[in-house]
C-alpha cells in the first residue's frame, strides 16, 4: 500500500534511533557506577587536604607565603573542567553559563581573565566564544591519572606564582545526585581561610623542617588534588547526565513512534474506506 510508505519509513528510522539511545543509556548507567566509585574513593583525601589548607590559611605563620597573600586583582585565572564528549544534556552549557556570568562580572571591574581548559567541550566553546586560553587539555579519558592533569594545572600555577594572575578559580560540576549536577566555582588561590570561630586566636604550627618548603609542597598537592577530584567528579556527572539525557531521548522516541503509528493507521484506514467506497460506487453504477 503506497499511502503509508513514507510514514512507515519514518517509524523505522525513529525505532533505530531509539535503539541507539537506549543502548547509550545502558552504557552510561554502567559507567556511572564505576565513575561514582572512583569519585567516592577520592573524596576523603580532597576533603582532608582542603581542611588542612583551611587551617593553614587561618594560622599566623612567621612566614607569609605568596599563596596566602591576597593581592589586588588585575587578572584572574579559571581552570574549567568540562566533558570530552557531548550528548549529556545541559551539563556543559549550564557550567559555561555560570562561568560566563562570573567572567562578565570580573570584566565589568576591568579584570582580565585567563582560561585553562580541561575537556573537548570547553575548548570548543571558548574557541567560538572567544577568551584568552592559556592552556587546553583534551581527551582526558574516564580514568585520568594525576600526572596527566599536572601539565595544564602547572601553567596556571606558575602564572600565579609569577604574579601574572592574582586569583585562581576552579569551575566544575558538583555531583549532588544522579538527577542533579550543580555548577560550582571555587577559589583555589590565594588560600581561602576556613570560617571557623575556634581558630580566631593567634596560633601557628610547628613546622618541620621549614615552613616555606613545606607550605609550597602542600599547596601544590592541594591544587593538584582539587583539580583531580574535580575531573573525577565531573566524569561521574557526565555519565549521570548522559544517562538521564538518553533516557528522555528514548522516551521521546517512544512518544514519536506512537504518534506516527496513529497517523499511519489513520491513513491506512482512510485508504481502505476510500477503496471500498470506490468499489461500492462502481457496483452501483453497473
Amino acid at each position: 500500500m503506497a499511502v503509508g510508505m513514507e510514514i512507515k519509513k519514518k517509524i523505522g528510522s525513529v525505532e533505530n534511533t531509539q535503539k541507539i539511545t537506549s543502548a547509550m543509556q545502558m552504557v552510561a548507567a554502567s559507567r556511572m557506577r564505576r565513575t561514582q566509585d572512583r569519585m567516592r574513593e577520592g573524596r576523603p583525601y580532597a576533603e582532608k587536604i582542603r581542611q588542612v589548607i583551611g587551617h593553614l590559611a587561618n594560622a599566623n605563620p612567621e612566614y607569609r607565603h605568596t599563596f596566602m597573600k591576597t593581592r589586588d586583582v588585575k587578572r584572574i585565572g579559571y581552570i574549567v573542567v568540562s566533558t570530552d564528549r557531548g550528548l549529556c544534556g545541559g551539563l556543559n552549557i549550564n557550567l559555561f553559563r555560570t562561568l560566563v556570568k562570573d567572567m562578565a562580572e570580573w570584566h565589568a571591574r576591568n579584570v582580565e581573565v585567563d582560561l585553562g581548559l580541561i575537556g573537548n567541550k570547553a575548548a570548543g566553546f571558548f574557541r567560538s566564544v572567544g577568551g584568552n586560553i592559556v592552556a587546553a587539555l583534551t581527551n582526558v579519558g574516564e580514568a585520568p591519572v594525576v600526572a596527566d592533569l599536572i601539565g595544564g594545572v602547572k601553567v596556571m600555577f606558575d602564572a600565579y606564582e609569577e604574579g601574572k594572575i592574582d586569583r585562581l578559580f576552579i569551575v566544575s560540576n558538583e555531583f549532588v545526585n544522579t538527577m542533579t549536577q550543580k555548577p560550582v566555582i571555587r577559589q583555589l588561590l590565594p588560600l581561602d581561610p576556613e570560617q571557623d570561630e575556634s581558630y580566631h586566636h593567634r596560633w601557628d604550627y610547628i613546622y618541620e623542617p621549614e615552613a616555606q618548603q613545606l607550605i609550597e609542597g602542600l599547596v601544590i598537592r592541594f591544587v593538584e588534588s582539587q583539580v583531580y577530584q574535580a575531573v573525577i567528579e565531573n566524569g561521574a556527572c557526565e555519565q549521570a547526565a548522559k544517562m538521564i539525557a538518553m533516557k528522555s531521548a528514548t522516551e521521546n522516541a517512544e512518544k514519536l513512534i506512537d504518534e506516527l503509528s496513529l497517523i499511519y493507521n489513520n491513513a491506512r484506514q482512510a485508504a481502505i474506506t476510500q477503496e471500498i467506497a470506490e468499489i461500492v460506487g462502481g457496483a452501483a453504477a453497473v
Partner: protein
Amino acid sequence: MAATIHCDIVSAEKEIFSGRITMMSATGTIGELGILPGHAPLLTGIKPGPVRLTMEDGEEEVFFASGGYLEVQPGVVTILADTAARAEDLDEAAAIEAQESAERAIQDQAADFDFSLAASQLANAMAQQRTLEELKKRRGR
C-alpha cells in the same frame, strides 16, 4: 580511660583509617615522631615508612605510608599520604623485587637514568620491608 585523639589516614586513592587512638608514631622528614593527645599544632612531611597506631583498647595497628604530610590539630591528627596501605596488605615479595630492581638501576646507570626517581623507589621499597619486618616481629611475640 586514657586520653584519646582522633586520627585520619587518607591517601589519594581512598580513606585508610579513621578513628580514635591513644598514640601514633611515624617517620617525619627529620626523624621519628610520636604523637600523643594534646600535642601542639604541627605540620610536617613524612618519609616512607611504617605508621603505628595504638588504639583505645591498647591494640596496635601498623600502616604503611609512602611519604606525604602529617598535620596535628588540637584533637585531630591527619596523615595525607601519597599512597598508604594496611601493613597486612603489603606484598613482601613485591617489595623485595622493587628494592632489587631499584638497586640495579642505581648501579648500572644508563644514559636516560633518573637518579632521584630510582632513589625514591629504593627508599620506598626499603620502607615497605621495614614495615613488614615490624609486623612480623609483632606477630612473633
